[in-house]
């Protein structure tokens, strides 16, 4: 808990630091180019928001440090592992779009996703392929939505 809290607050402070740095860069650019600069220009606004974020991050860091660390590190539960597997699948699915295109990537995604959600393997494959095909027809031909096209893509 404590470690997660400290990491979270450090993440917030890192984000704020990036904002402050960009505000400083923008301020320099605006001064050099003599561009529009009101009293609350885009640089100052970003600096104020980033500073507020930095303060919030510091507050959380301070609070997290005060939290008692658990005596023994708990093993991540099955629920967390399940989410981890789903996140990996999602990232893989999104990464496959530019190469496989929507149809092929989705044909691979659904059976694995159903399996990960607890459907039996053979049923996952059958339902997965069916749902992928229905999705493709619905999106590409009925709703006429633009779908990601990959190097191996074909169809709509």
């Amino acid at each position, binding site marked *: 808990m404590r470690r997660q809290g400290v990491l979270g607050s450090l993440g917030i402070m890192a984000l704020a630091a990036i904002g402050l740095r960009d505000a400083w860069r*923008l301020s320099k650019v605006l001064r050099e180019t003599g*561009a529009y600069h009101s009293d609350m220009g885009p640089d100052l*606004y970003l600096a104020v928001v980033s500073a*507020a974020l930095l303060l919030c*991050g510091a507050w*959380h860091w301070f609070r997290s440090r005060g939290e008692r660390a658990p005596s023994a590190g708990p093993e991540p539960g099955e629920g967390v592992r399940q989410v981890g597997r789903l996140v990996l699948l*999602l990232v893989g699915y*999104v990464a496959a779009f530019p190469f496989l295109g929507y149809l092929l990537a*989705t044909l691979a995604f659904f059976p694995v996703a159903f399996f990960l959600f607890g459907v039996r393997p053979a049923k996952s494959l059958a339902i997965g392929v069916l749902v992928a095909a229905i999705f493709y027809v619905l999106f590409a031909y009925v709703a006429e939505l*633009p779908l990601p096209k990959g190097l191996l893509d074909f169809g709509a």
Partner: protein
Amino acid sequence: MGSGLIEGFVGALSFTNLAYCLLGCLLGTVVGVLPGLGPAATSAILLPLTSYMPPAGAIIMLAGIYYGAMYGGSTTSILVNVPGEASSVPTCLDGFQMTKQGRAGEALAIAAIGSFIAGTFGTLALSFLGPALARIGLRFGPPEYFCLVVFSLTALVSFSEGSLVKGLTTGIAGLFLACIGLDPMSGKQRLTFGIVEFAGGLDVIAVLMGLFGVAEVLASAGEGVLHLYKGRLGHLLPRGRELTRGILGSTQGTITGFLLGLLPGMIPERFGTGCIEGVAAPEAANNATSQAGFIPLMSLGIPTSPTLAIMLAALMMYGLQPGPFLFIQHHAFAWTVIASMYIGNVILLILNLPLVGLWARLCLIPYRYLGPVILAVCLVGAFSVRNSLFDVGTCTLFGILGYAMKKRHWPSTPLILGVILGPMLEQSLTQSLELSGGSLTILFTRPIALTLLVLTCVLLFLARKVLRSPKLAHAG
């Protein structure tokens, strides 16, 4: 108001708009019944698809999903003791007790009747107060808008789950993320780091899909299948004193929910024992709160919940700027949407009384079949807005972030509203400072702006001292 409402009914009763209203109410009831799929997630998922619909039809449908979910949320609370929506948690206490006493039919009926009373009252209030507030809004200049946005963000932070500072942090993080892209005033790039895709800023829909769609599925993954109550439902309609008490409870809940959007008016000594008011009041309060949210949205352009934020995004997608001018420039549109809400409440009453058994069985659909489908729809939805794989990545990233936030009890609503309201906040602040020659005193010298700032301070005080008191937190 009268002629506008009549004109609205003419528009809302057209075949197309009636169909969209019915579809929205149906979808809303379904998502209200299904735990783990809320109105915000559904609206976010459907938003890209609505770009092919006429504006009035799309907003009528999205509104139907919103208030329909409030009706549907009570069904699982009463029959399964699992709230379909977070707002239906109080209904579980007395609703499930009534079910165990063989009075499920009465509980379901009074929930629908209470929702109808509150929904209709809320729509009536919108019809009267919406245009009136819009007229006041016409007097708003940049300083007033700046203070209004500050007030709205503060209100959201105050009422959101978790600590006040957590809400404040996510709200500010939302404002920070809204800075990504081209600055509207100077045209300079901010936080883009030379990445072309960042120049257009983060797509609000992709962020919404991630935070409310993908995150919801990740959080629900691994949850077991619910078991529906298989006993008898009892009488469908409460009778005599029960009906009177139910209606009185609904009225109490309507007023409380409308004014505060908070806790229902319970009778402490009978709390949790299966009293009919314990079902009527929270359900009425939920519906009154949801309907009341349309008033600031339509008349001032300020969303008060994630679903209303999605509706704001939808309106903007159609080039309709919600706010005082909506009732003037898009008079027919505004009144058609309002009139559709009266019709939607009648549709929902009809849907929820005789078809309650059907809705109850919906919650038996195992999540293992729904989860993958929702994930895939979210990603396609995120892609379809700008045909951008970058947005798909954004959606995934915010899904993971949203899940982590849920696990750590960080509210995501202030984050999304920060992203949506950020540009308005910056623009109104910049314009205010230009008007005053760089002095912030302009915010304190104009009566409406000053009132809003005082209200913000009062709200912060109340949030710290009253709303988050241990006693109230325990009651909630």
